[in-house]
């Protein structure tokens, strides 16, 4: 099982799904028994999801998708 320092160091790699299964299991093992690390983990999981949630919503202007469709298949398009 991982200790507190290792868990905090590798918390983001775990959150980003970048840890090998075996290592991820060791981190999960520690999170299950350590409320301090568990709470830090939940905070950062929330932080990551908030960034995604709040920075992903940009309304498209009217007609933008139509203009984009014109990018395909028109050989006469020149560099802007």
């Amino acid at each position, binding site marked *: 099982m991982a200790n507190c320092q290792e868990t905090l160091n590798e918390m983001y790699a775990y959150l980003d799904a970048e840890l090998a299964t075996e290592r991820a299991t060791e981190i999960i093992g520690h999170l299950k028994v350590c409320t301090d690390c568990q709470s830090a983990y939940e905070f950062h999981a929330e932080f990551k999801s908030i960034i995604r949630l709040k920075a992903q919503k940009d309304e498209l202007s009217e007609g933008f998708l139509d203009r*984009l469709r014109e990018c395909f298949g028109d050989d006469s398009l020149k560099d802007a």
Partner: protein
Amino acid sequence: MTPQEDFTHDAMQYAPQLFSTAMRMTRNRNNAEDLVQETFIKAWRSFATYQQGTNLRAWLFRIMTNTYINKYNAQQRKPTETELDDVEELFLYKRLGAVDQSQLSQSAEDQMLSMFTDDEVKNALEELPDQFRIPVLMSDVEGFSYKEIAEILEIPLGTVMSRLHRGRKSMQKMLYEYAKKRGLINEALLPQGDDE
């Protein structure tokens, strides 16, 4: 559908994601629209070299990132390790314990969601220097793997990880400053000597 029609259909599906990322990159709607348009024109011209079944989404983001870097002279490859202040580990986590509970009625998990507005999160991202902002956008917003980000940016995996680490900490500090400015955080409640 012909392969060309398939390609167009698939690429168009990613238009909203590409546009959001372009908005964070250029910070301007017209420039963001131009950037996505230029990306699609380049993608279409390179259609012959695109291998069906490979990662179209990463390929499009790579074209867009390169276009952005070239067009806006983004400082992608310059060594800029000193460009961001060093922020301590778990910066925001250590401080949000000081939020006055009476100001927030939600559960602890919802606190951060209600605390930061969409604009604040977008601003915090947009304030990051390019070489930190793009990896954070690619990972936290677009969900690309470290390997994909390394390929999109043509930088080593270790560099992706260190830029993500520093970029995220710096964003936390910026968001903390926004919250402080709005009076959501009472500094008197902070642990003594833990600031800076």
